[in-house]
């Protein structure tokens, strides 16, 4: 399971960075309501409430999994079944990914100016100055 190892490794290095510079942690789904920094520990929930999962579906024609929404489930297996029942009832997909929402980290909307605006005047980064060969697909 090389993938799992890689994930763990990343997590470790993230943690060590966190010790040097204080990283504010954002949970996906926290942002829309609060638009501000989320606490670094998850908000304590009612223990009877099932964890939240984000669902990604790949459609028949699609090449990538797209985020379609979220749902509650007790574990990954149930999350996939729930996703099948909630999000593929109308033949929307042929493959499902789920990830627990708390494991998704999001950029802070307040940082948008710093993060994204600098790219605005760098049009030379767009591939519009090249002629794409016919064989290149999915661009």
């Amino acid at each position, binding site marked *: 399971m090389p993938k799992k190892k890689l994930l763990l490794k990343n997590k470790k290095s993230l943690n060590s960075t966190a010790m040097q510079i204080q990283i504010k942690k954002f949970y996906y789904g926290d942002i829309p309501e609060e638009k501000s920094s989320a606490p670094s520990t998850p908000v304590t929930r009612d223990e009877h409430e099932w964890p939240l999962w984000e669902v990604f579906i790949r459609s028949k024609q699609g090449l990538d999994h797209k985020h379609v929404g979220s749902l*509650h*489930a*007790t574990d990954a297996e149930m999350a996939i*079944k729930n996703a099948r*029942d909630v999000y593929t*009832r109308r033949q929307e997909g042929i493959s499902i990914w789920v990830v627990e929402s708390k494991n998704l980290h999001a950029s802070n909307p307040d940082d948008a100016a710093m993060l994204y605006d600098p790219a605005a005047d760098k049009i030379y980064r767009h591939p519009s100055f090249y002629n794409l060969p016919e064989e290149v697909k999915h661009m």
Partner: protein
Amino acid sequence: MNAHLDYVLHLADTTLVLAQRNSEWCGHGPILEQDIAITNISLDLLGQARNYYQHAASLINTANPNAQADEDSLAYLRDEREFKNPLLVELEKGDWAKTTLRQFLFSVFQDLQLKRLLHSTDTQIAAIAEKSLKETAYHIAWSSEWVIRLGDGTPESHSRMVTALNEVWEFTGGLFVPAPYELQLAGTIAADVSQLEKPWTETVSNVLEEATLSLPGKTFMQQSGKTGIHTEAMGYILAEMQSLKRSLPTATW
């Protein structure tokens, strides 16, 4: 011909009545996602029932061109004694443990039955079986997971599963006792259900074991539903399901 029609109606009634029972969870599921899951299953079963009823109607209309039978008249205008579903599917939905356990016990049976119906000499039945098997595979996966989850869960969920098992068990035996119309057609149009008990018990006991539940011992088994004799629960289902059609016969959506 009569046995043939009875058999198709038996398959139709079985799936319709369980669809109706499961649909009672609509808007009342323990959590939104599971509310959708159980009603999806209900819709799968309803779709199967419609296929069987349409087939039954065409059998009736072919034999008697003036009959004008259709899926609605067969589902809504027949009385309790004419319904040929086994008792297991008409039992009240109970709590989530009972609903998921009953679904599991039924789906394992249905899967075995449909696999045999793939070879039915009635090609329409064989075609419906082929389509339904994919749905049933999911019903087994979904319901067995719940039986295991609750059986091997908290003391509360375990005791609910035990209660459900005790309530439901005596109604499982009837699945494997062929009605006269089944006996007559076994091996040709119909599946020989008497052969299904062994593989059914094997699958069921494996899942129950994982759920830390023990397979009930040999006991008295109810077995009358397929011949039209039902429990007291049946009249209530039909009353709810048929009253609109009967009081407003020309109503449309």
